[in-house]
Structures are given as structure tokens and as C-alpha cells.
């Protein structure tokens, strides 16, 4: 009964989404307040319906209802409860339902926090979001219904993919979807503004916190996915340029560009056309990613089981949504007009270059991801593009971007002069190069590319220091000590610094781990030892362990340095009972300076094990960098100017306002 209820709830949600998508939009065109007033209630109602449907599916998993095809394909009677709940989004159908639920959560948030926006504008935004939701609900009901019955019921289920049976994996898809779907808000703002013809600084100010919020989630989701891959796949890598990883990374790159171009649009009224195009692109790339993952046009590690109708449906949806948006864009954009003029050397220019580099980086990733498809479609044979292409191209594009990250924030709007900039930044440059050389020397090897990358990381931090010192220096007519001046810094600016600091930490981690990591594959038996990077690894024993739905060979390995016992690690080789594929459960001893990473390889005929031991200096800085970037984003979204009900008296004293440069 409950699955049928879920089915009905989804149908109702589709009806409500269509009402929400059509009537307020028509009402906004005709100036009918009663139609526009439908937008908010229908958004709330749709969210409730989808949430209830989600609860129905969850209950089918919890109750082991193997008469539901989706449950039978992704669960099993041995699967522990937390994973049964996570299995709700472990496959194609359920993850789509999660997608729609997230979209509804964002829509409700917009409906809730848009009291200060004009009614017409809100009606259009919620209608656009309603149409997107309708498209996805229709996709689900037509091609991928999570509530399809399997009659007679299966005796037991096929189990959740063992790869997904991990705490990190439970949170990864929801976070990623929150980010993907969050860009639909920026997109809806852009479309509503294009229809209404009110693209201006105010529009940019409304859009910014939503875009940053989506970007925070996406950063978290991608970082979590990378961390999970590192800890779970047992290869010790953290990024593989897999088509699916790329699918999530492309919206991130464009979203990052969008955050920066929105800053220009808000502060100076420039880049309006470009900003709108980026907003459309960020969401389009989220949709494209969905298409790539779920249509089976590319072979990938994560590709969902494919059904040709699905690919076709998403493609049609993609063409309708993106095609219509770009058509609207081409019709409206010529009348938008240009913003204020700016000189060749100015903050606007540096942000323009930033946007270009990010867009080119995204284009390079897109090209690499789709190149095999292009060639195949033109009958020119089949190839696969691997990490060598991505690593090379991406590094080349990122280097100037990091260079710019040190200069851009210190530039003035409108016009700046080279001599002044050079004077302000010369010590930062010297410091960065010196520190990079010192670090390479301390690490034991000076490699040009690595030292360059480290110099860029230090450069970002050093120039940030210059910026901070300049702002904390007492200036005429200002009272209060350093602390007082510190408190006057706009949160958006501090957020920018922290986010850039995150990038520096990330770059530092990547450079260090890529250059100075060591690994060894050794045959080990009980009591054998090996030495890697000054650490001694001794295998104490290998024993069999029974998990809830797997059996594992678990090694006990003691790690010591200079005779001091540091850690006991227990890497496992698991065999899951149902799908009977072996899984490697790596064991990691982690701190901020290095990871010691052990994974079990093969068992040899004589009972020895091949064990892979890796020493990875500073790898955690990669994910720490992601977290710090997120923190910067969080701080920036909490900037007081986004809290609409501001009384004039609470504003910054004159002379400080407008200093915020993000």
C-alpha cells in the first residue's frame, strides 16, 4: 500500500509543480496578483508532497519490502539500518527523488526568505523553479519510477553496491545535489530578471548569497567525494578525472566564476550580460552532468544502469530548458546595456581575466570529457582521454589564476596604476619565492614545477597579508585600535580572504603530495617488517573478521618510528556476501603533516599478502583547503548587507561602506 501512496504523492506533486510553474508566470505577465499569490503556497505544498513520497520510499527500505523493484535492486535483509536509509539514494531512481526533494527544499527557502523582493519577481522565480521540478518529476514518473513493483516479490535483495557502504558515501550525494540544485536558484533569478528586464546591481545583490550557498554545498560535496574515494577505493588517489567527477567539477568552476562576476555586477553594474550567461551556464552544466551520468553516453566508473529512454528524455529536457533560456538571453541581452567603464588596469579587468580563466578551464574539462563522444559521433574512431591531458591542461590554466589571486584583491576598482601595485606587493613576492625555496629544500628536493606551485600558494597568503596590514593601518579620521578596525572589516571581504586562503592550502597540499609522496608494495607475512619514509611497518597478524554482511581478512600492522610505537592499523580485504565482489578497506593513520596509508593487495598462494604502504605528506591539506574555502563562503553569505531588514543606523560609518570589494 505504502509504495502506491508514494506513487500518488509524486503524481500530485507533479500537478502542483505545473500549477506553480505556469500560473504565477502568466500572472506576472498580466499583472494578476491572485495568480502570482499561488506561487508560495504551491511551493510549500509541493515540498510536503515530495517529502512524504521520500518517506514512503524510505519506509519500503526500512521494512525490507522486496516487492518494490528499486528496493530489491539496492538493499538486502543483511544490510544494516543506516545503510538501508542511505540506499534510498544509492541508485538511479532514488537519487532522482533526492534531487527533486533538494530542489523543493531550495524553492521553499527562496519562498521563505524573499519577503523583501517585489511580488512579480518572486512569482517568476518560483515559477521557473516549479517548471524545473515538473520536468524532473515527469522524468522520474515516465522513465525511472522508484515505486515500481516487482511481483512476485524477490526473496531477498541484490544489496547496495559495497562501494556505497561507507559513512562518507552516505553524505556525499545529498551534499553534491544540494550544490547542483542550488544553482537552479541563481538560474531562476537570472531568468526572472531577463523576463522582467530588471538586471541591475540590486538583482546581483539578491542573487549573491544564494549562489554562494550553492557553491558551499558543491564544494563540500566534491571534497567529500574526493576524500571518500581516497579512503575507500584503496588506491590512495584523490582525483581521477573520471567523467562523473568532471560532471560535478564543471558547475563548480562556472559557479566560482559566477560568484566573482556577480561581485562586479553588484559593485559597478558591469558584466551584466556575462553574469546572466554564467548563471544560465552553471545550472546548464548541472543538468548536463546529470545527463552524462544517467544516459550512458560515456563509460564511467559511476555510470548508472542505462536505459536509452532516459538519455533521450533528459536530452529533450536539456534542449528545452537550456535552449529556451539561451533564446531568451539572446532576445533580452542586447537591451541590457553596459555598466560603468573601467581602465585596463583595474579590479574589473582582473575579475574579467579570472572569469575567462575559469571558463576556459571549464571548457577544457568539457572538451576532455566529451572528446571521445565527438570523435565517435563523427565516425572517427574511438579513444579515451586520460589524466595526462587533464593534468597538463588544467595546471597550465590554474597557474595564472593563482598568480592573479594574489594581485586582484588589492587592485582598485575603475583604475589602478602599475607602479603603486608593484610597490605594495614587492615584499610579498620576495617572501613567497623565498618560502617556496625553503620548503622545497626542507622537503629534500627542489623541483621547478613544485617550487613554482608552492610559490603560488605562498604568494596568495603573502599578498593577503599585505592587504590586511594596509586595511588595519590607522587612517585619518578613524578612531579605535587595531581590534576596532578589524571589527569594521566587512564580512564579505574576510570571507574572500578565507576562501582564497583555502585555495592556497589546497595548492600547497597538491604540490607537496604529488612531489614528495612515496609508496612501496611489499610481500608481508606475520612478523615481517618494511620501512617507508622513516616509518617502520610491522605486520603482527592477519585474521578473519565477520562483518554484518561481509567477511574480511584483517591485517594488524604496527607503525613505529625510532622504536616508538605510533599506531596500530587494521586494513581489510572484504568480500561482501551478496554481490561477492572483493573490496579493499584501506587503513590510514592521519595527521596534518602526513598520512600513512596501508591497503591490502592480493593474497599469494603461499599465504603471504601483498601490502601497499604509502607515505603521503600534507595530503590532508587538500581537503582542509576545501573546508576553509567553504568557511570563507559561509562567512561571506552572512554579510550584513544581505539581511534585508537593515535599518540605516546599523550600517557602517561613512568611508567604510563600499570598501567591501567582493
Amino acid at each position, binding site marked *: 500500500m505504502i509504495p502506491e501512496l508514494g506513487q500518488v504523492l509524486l503524481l500530485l506533486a507533479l500537478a502542483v509543480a505545473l500549477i506553480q510553474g505556469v500560473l504565477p508566470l502568466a500572472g506576472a505577465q498580466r499583472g494578476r496578483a491572485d495568480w502570482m499569490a499561488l506561487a508560495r503556497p504551491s511551493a510549500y505544498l509541493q515540498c510536503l508532497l515530495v517529502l512524504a513520497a521520500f518517506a514512503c520510499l524510505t519506509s519500503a527500505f526500512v521494512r525490507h519490502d522486496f516487492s518494490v523493484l528499486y528496493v530489491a535492486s539496492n538493499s538486502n535483509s543483511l544490510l544494516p539500518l543506516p545503510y538501508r536509509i542511505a540506499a534510498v539514494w544509492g541508485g538511479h531512481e532514488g537519487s532522482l527523488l533526492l534531487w527533486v526533494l533538494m530542489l523543493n527544499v531550495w524553492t521553499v527557502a527562496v519562498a521563505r526568505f524573499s519577503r523583501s523582493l517585489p511580488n512579480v519577481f518572486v512569482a517568476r522565480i518560483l515559477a521557473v523553479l516549479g517548471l524545473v521540478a515538473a520536468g524532473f518529476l515527469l522524468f522520474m514518473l515516465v522513465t525511472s519510477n522508484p515505486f515500481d513493483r516487482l511481483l512476485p516479490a524477490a526473496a531477498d535483495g541484490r544489496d547496495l553496491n559495497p562501494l556505497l557502504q561507507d559513512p562518507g558515501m552516505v553524505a556525499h550525494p545529498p551534499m553534491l545535489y544540494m550544490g547542483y540544485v542550488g544553482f537552479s536558484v541563481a538560474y531562476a533569478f537570472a531568468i526572472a530578471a531577463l523576463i522582467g528586464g530588471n538586471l541591475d546591481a540590486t538583482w546581483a545583490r539578491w542573487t549573491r548569497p544564494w549562489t554562494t550557498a550553492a557553491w558551499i554545498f558543491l564544494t563540500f560535496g566534491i571534497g567529500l567525494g574526493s576524500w571518500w574515494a581516497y579512503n575507500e*577505493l584503496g*588506491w590512495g588517489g584523490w582525483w*581521477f578525472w*573520471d567523467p562523473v567527477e568532471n560532471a560535478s567539477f564543471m558547475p563548480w568552476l562556472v559557479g566560482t566564476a559566477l560568484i566573482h562576476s556577480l561581485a562586479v555586477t553588484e559593485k559597478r553594474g558591469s558584466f551584466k*550580460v556575462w553574469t546572466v*550567461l554564467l548563471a*544560465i551556464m552553471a545550472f*546548464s552544466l548541472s543538468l548536463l552532468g546529470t*545527463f552524462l551520468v544517467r*544516459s*550512458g*553516453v*560515456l*563509460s*564511467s*566508473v559511476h555510470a548508472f544502469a542505462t536505459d*536509452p529512454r532516459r*538519455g*533521450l528524455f533528459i*536530452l529533450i529536457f*536539456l*534542449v528545452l530548458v*537550456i*535552449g529556451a533560456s*539561451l*533564446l531568451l*538571453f*539572446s*532576445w533580452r*541581452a*542586447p537591451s541590457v546595456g553596459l555598466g560603468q567603464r573601467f581602465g585596463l588596469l583595474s579590479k574589473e579587468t582582473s575579475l574579467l581575466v579570472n572569469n575567462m580563466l575559469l571558463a576556459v578551464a571549464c571548457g577544457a574539462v568539457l572538451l576532455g570529457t*566529451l572528446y*571521445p*563522444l*565527438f570523435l*565517435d*559521433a563523427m565516425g572517427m*574512431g*574511438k*579513444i*579515451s582521454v*586520460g*589524466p*595526462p591531458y587533464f593534468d597538463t591542461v588544467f595546471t597550465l590554466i590554474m597557474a595564472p589564476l593563482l598568480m592573479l589571486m594574489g594581485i586582484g584583491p588589492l587592485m582598485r576598482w575603475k583604475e589602478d596604476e602599475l607602479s603603486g601595485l608593484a610597490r605594495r606587493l614587492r615584499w610579498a613576492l620576495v617572501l613567497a619565492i623565498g618560502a617556496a625555496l625553503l620548503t622545497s629544500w626542507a622537503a629534500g628536493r627542489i623541483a621547478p614545477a613544485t617550487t613554482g606551485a608552492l610559490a603560488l600558494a605562498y604568494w596568495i597568503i603573502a599578498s593577503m597579508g599585505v592587504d590586511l596590514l594596509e586595511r588595519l593601518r590607522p587612517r585619518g579620521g578613524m578612531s579605535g585600535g587595531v581590534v576596532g578596525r578589524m571589527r569594521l572589516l566587512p564580512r564579505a571581504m574576510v570571507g574572500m580572504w578565507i576562501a582564497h586562503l583555502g585555495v592556497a592550502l589546497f595548492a600547497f597540499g597538491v604540490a607537496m603530495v604529488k612531489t614528495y609522496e612515496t609508496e612501496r*608494495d611489499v610481500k608481508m607475512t606475520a612478523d615481517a617488517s618494511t620501512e617507508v619514509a622513516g616509518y617502520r611497518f610491522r605486520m603482527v597478524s592477519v585474521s578473519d573478521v565477520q562483518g554484518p554482511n561481509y567477511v574480511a581478512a584483517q591485517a594488524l600492522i604496527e607503525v613505529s618510528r625510532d622504536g616508538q610505537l605510533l599506531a596500530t592499523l587494521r586494513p581489510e580485504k572484504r568480500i561482501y556476501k551478496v*554481490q*561477492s*565482489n*572483493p573490496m579493499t578497506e584501506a587503513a590510514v593513520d592521519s595527521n596534518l603533516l602526513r598520512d600513512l596509508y596501508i591497503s591490502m*593487495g*592480493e593474497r599469494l598462494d603461499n599465504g603471504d599478502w*601483498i601490502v*601497499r604502504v604509502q607515505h603521503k605528506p600534507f595530503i590532508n591539506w587538500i581537503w582542509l583547503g576545501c573546508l576553509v574555502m567553504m568557511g570563507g563562503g559561509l562567512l561571506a553569505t552572512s554579510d550584513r548587507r544581505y539581511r534585508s531588514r537593515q535599518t540605516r543606523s546599523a550600517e557602517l560609518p561613512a568611508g567604510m561602506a563600499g570598501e567591501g570589494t567582493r
Partner: protein
Amino acid sequence: MNRFLLPLGAFLLLALFLALGLRLNPREVPSPLIDKPAPAFQASTLARPEATIKREDLLGKVWVLNVWASWCAACRDEHALLVDFSRRGVAPIYGLNYKDKREDGLGWLGRFGNPYTDTLFDPEGRIGIDYGVYGVPETFVIDKAGLIRYKHIGPVTPEVLRDKIEPLLRKLDANA
């Protein structure tokens, strides 16, 4: 000409390619080689450059050819399955190390286990071209007469192994 139409044009071009891509299946392209003699090859082995294997050496037995490379992420997905398969000794598996460096390939086998009876070293991808390889991994089943009887594109899954490859191997083995 409205230059703001450019993004739309670019997108529609992309959509066209995606539509074409939908009609192609990256995993199951019928190989023109099925039931044809396996292309001849003579390659040095990965482990010992001085030793060579040629197609004629393998006539008279049913064998599996698995194309792999150390730079291929999808290969790691299927690898544990292959190791397990080779341990059960259903049929010999020969690897074709495709467009790879010798030390990388050997290191990879040392790390993840070596399911292969032997591995052909194909640094330029020449043998791969003869066999119509366009992506890694790919897996072929070749019978006693040296005919290609089956080709699987993409990582081998437990289902494919259980439902397609193993029954076929047993059937081919029974045909003297």
C-alpha cells in the same frame, strides 16, 4: 546578426552531438571481428622484454584476452574480479598492456595482483588497433581455432562473467 545568439548556437551543436552519442553505445559496439580469426600478433611480454608470444602459440586452447593499462581507472574496477577468475582456473587470461610504460604496468600488477598467464606489451597500441580496441578495458574470448567469439567493452562485471563469459568458455571447451 545578433552575437548574443552565439551561446545558443554552440549549445545546439553540443546537443546534436549528445543526440548522436545517445545512439552509440560506448559499451556494446558490435565488433566486426566476432567469429573472424583473431588478428595475428607477435609481442614481447611485459615481464621479460626478450620473450615473445605470437597468436599461433595459443592455438588449440580457449583463452581470454583482457586489454588494460595502468592509467585506466575502470581497469581497477574489474581487476579484483579477474584475479579471482584466474584463481579458479576456468581459462587462461592473457593481458594486453595497452599504450603503457613497462615499469608502470609491472608496478600496477605488483600492486593489484596479476591474474594474467602472461601479458603482451603493446606500448604503441599497434595490436590494439588490429583488435579494434578504442578504450580500455576490453575483453575478448578466443577459441581453439583462433576465432574471436565474444567481446566485452568496459569493465567486466560479475554478471557478465557469470552469465556470458563463463558459459561460453565452458561451451567452447566442450567442443573438441
